[in-house]
């Protein structure tokens, strides 16, 4: 038995571990050892990748490329390949993953199972929109090959399906042509939420990547709007890889009521002062936190929660304002607060998170009942707005909110693999 935590470090329960070695053996291995749960890099924040006292099938050994066509940008690989390895292999050849989240230290299988999105959602959609085919091993020993046109129902269940329809063994991805590793970026400070929305709307046509950091303290909603485009040929040396590691778990969260106000103010003013146009390497622009290994230790021994919601645009401004007010009056606070508009497009998966509207992502050090109390208030706002929470980030949403936010849940349940369940699936789906 091995103690496994997910990225939020809220628990450390014992698990049995079995590594998956070879793609052609996975279905047999599952049949022999089920029930269990696939587990990749463990980067989902809550209990989605956990199965306390049960079995985890480790997918990180399935880390081989199978084929890459440089003319078409089609990549076939095993599902344990890291997005980082795809980027580092393909960018020098003029191709890039169309969609990546804020970290590249996740597996392809995890990216599909969460249908992850990036800052360019309004331009290109989510990860599942670029999956051409995938191979799914089931615990009855069978294998399902599916894609947007081949068994599209299986595909739609598996994209965003949290690993519950089977273990993704291989996938074929369509990469996007790029001129190089550079992004042309611009940072625009904004004073409040009313300024954010016009800025977001005005940026969507001309900028592929848009995101904003928002200062959730004080309630006004000032922030920094960042936008970027892949940039043409710029002859610059690649920056040297420089990573640091959070060396230890501090006894208390470094993100706390004392540190946050000066930290957020400093961050806002530093970047306001440096605002304007710049050139950034794709790794620095897209994955700033990957350079600080183990950054999740910053929140101390009790771990932290992420709370990411999306609410429809029609009520977006008011709902976000109400959430900021609730946070301000609760005395809790967040540093990694991100506000972004999603594009007007239907997501490929039955349980995909992105929907048209505005998404707010927040981090909160775990302070027990006080933090959970705040979440109840935020839940009420999200529910009233007709929004949903992101399962990849969640560790505690009530089942009612999950059911209300994901109307295709009943349809999804038909595709569940009965030999697979997680702490999250038992919490939110009953099995």
């Amino acid at each position: 038995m091995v103690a496994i935590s997910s990225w939020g470090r809220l628990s450390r329960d014992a698990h049995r571990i079995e590594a998956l070695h070879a793609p052609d053996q996975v279905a047999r291995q599952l049949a022999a050892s089920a029930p269990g749960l696939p587990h990749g890099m463990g980067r989902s924040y809550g209990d989605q990748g956990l199965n306390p006292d049960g079995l985890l099938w480790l997918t990180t050994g399935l880390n081989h490329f199978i084929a890459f066509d440089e003319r078409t940008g089609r990549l076939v690989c095993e599902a344990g390949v890291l997005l980082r390895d795809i980027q580092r292999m393909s960018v020098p050849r003029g191709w890039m993953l169309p969609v990546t989240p804020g970290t590249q230290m996740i597996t392809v299988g995890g990216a599909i199972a969460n249908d992850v999105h990036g800052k360019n959602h309004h331009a290109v959609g989510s990860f599942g929109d670029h999956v051409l085919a995938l191979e799914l091993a089931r615990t009855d020993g069978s294998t399902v090959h599916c894609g947007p046109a081949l068994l599209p129902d299986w595909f739609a269940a598996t994209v965003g399906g949290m690993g519950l329809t089977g273990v993704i063994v291989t996938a074929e991805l369509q990469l996007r042509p790029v001129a190089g590793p550079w992004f042309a970026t611009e940072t625009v400070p904004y004073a409040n939420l009313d300024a954010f929305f016009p800025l977001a709307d005005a940026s969507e046509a001309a900028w592929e990547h848009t995101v904003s950091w928002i200062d959730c303290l004080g309630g006004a909603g000032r922030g920094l709007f960042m936008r970027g485009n892949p940039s043409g040929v710029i002859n610059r040396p690649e920056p040297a890889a420089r990573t640091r590691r959070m060396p230890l778990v501090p006894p208390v969260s470094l993100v706390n009521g004392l540190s946050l106000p000066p930290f957020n103010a400093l961050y806002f003013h530093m970047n306001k002062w440096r605002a304007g146009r710049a050139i950034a390497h794709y790794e620095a622009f897209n994955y700033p936190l990957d350079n600080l290994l183990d950054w999740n230790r910053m929140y101390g021994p009790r771990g932290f929660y992420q709370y990411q919601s999306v609410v429809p645009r029609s009520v977006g401004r008011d709902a976000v304002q109400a959430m900021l007010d609730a946070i301000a009056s609760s005395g809790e606070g967040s540093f990694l607060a991100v506000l972004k508009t999603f594009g007007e497009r239907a997501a490929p998966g039955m349980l995909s998170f992105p929907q048209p509207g505005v998404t707010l992502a927040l981090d909160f050090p775990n302070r027990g009942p006080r933090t959970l109390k705040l979440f109840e208030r935020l839940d009420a706002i999200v529910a009233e707005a007709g929004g949903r929470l992101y399962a990849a980030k969640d560790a505690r949403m009530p089942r009612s909110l999950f059911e209300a936010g994901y109307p295709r849940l009943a349809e999804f349940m038909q595709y569940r693999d009965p030999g697979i369940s997680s702490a999250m699936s038992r919490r939110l789906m009953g099995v």
Partner: protein
Amino acid sequence: MSDQVTKIVIVGATSAIAEHCARLWLNAARCEVILLGRDLAKTERVAADLRVRGPQSQVSAQQADFADPLAIGRQVDAICATGPVDIVLIAHGSLPDQAHCQADLQANQEALAVNGISPVLFAEAFAGHMQRADRGTLGLIGSVAGDRGRKSNYVYGAAKGLVTRYAQGLQHRLAATNVKVVLIKPGPTDTPMTAHLKKDGGKLASVEQVAQEIVKGMAQGKLTVYAPGKWFVIMMIIRHLPHFIFKKMDI
């Protein structure tokens, strides 16, 4: 190096450490890589991966019989007949179950053969060719387990101890040539095969880090590479502990 093609042979190419070394070599230069493995399908899977990572390089896979000295000799002769080899990495082996080896002498013999005798036969077979060509680096993967026998894995440790002495002998024999023999001693490494040993994620070295230290150490032509380096200090202490203390340790 840029227009020179580096000829690399990896024995036991499906080992996670060997595979990550190959990825680093392919990233750094144009290579001709020959992969040897017991299971051709698994070795081909590694080859396909390396072809994607290094499209300018040429990667081929060959099935190898690790137990038959005649087959080893023939295969190495054939590989060296097409031109001198720049890098050889002998990486095969399998971590045996100590208790099983104590109870079953057949399993014991097999563990000694695959982890000890087979690697040194490959090394011997390559050494002659490399000596005649007067070039190349021969890397042999031993283990920190070979530094001192201990109750929890002395069968594996003894096999790796054989590799250690053999490497020393080759280093002595080839000292006057341009051939470098590098003995590599990885500590416990976080590979899919050791997932069940993982306690906290922090205790085992990452396979990427271990591979980086091996590739660097081989490029420098070091005699011995502990990967990660801290194992040099740890094993120095373990080797020198007096028996009256050592015998009380449950390791």
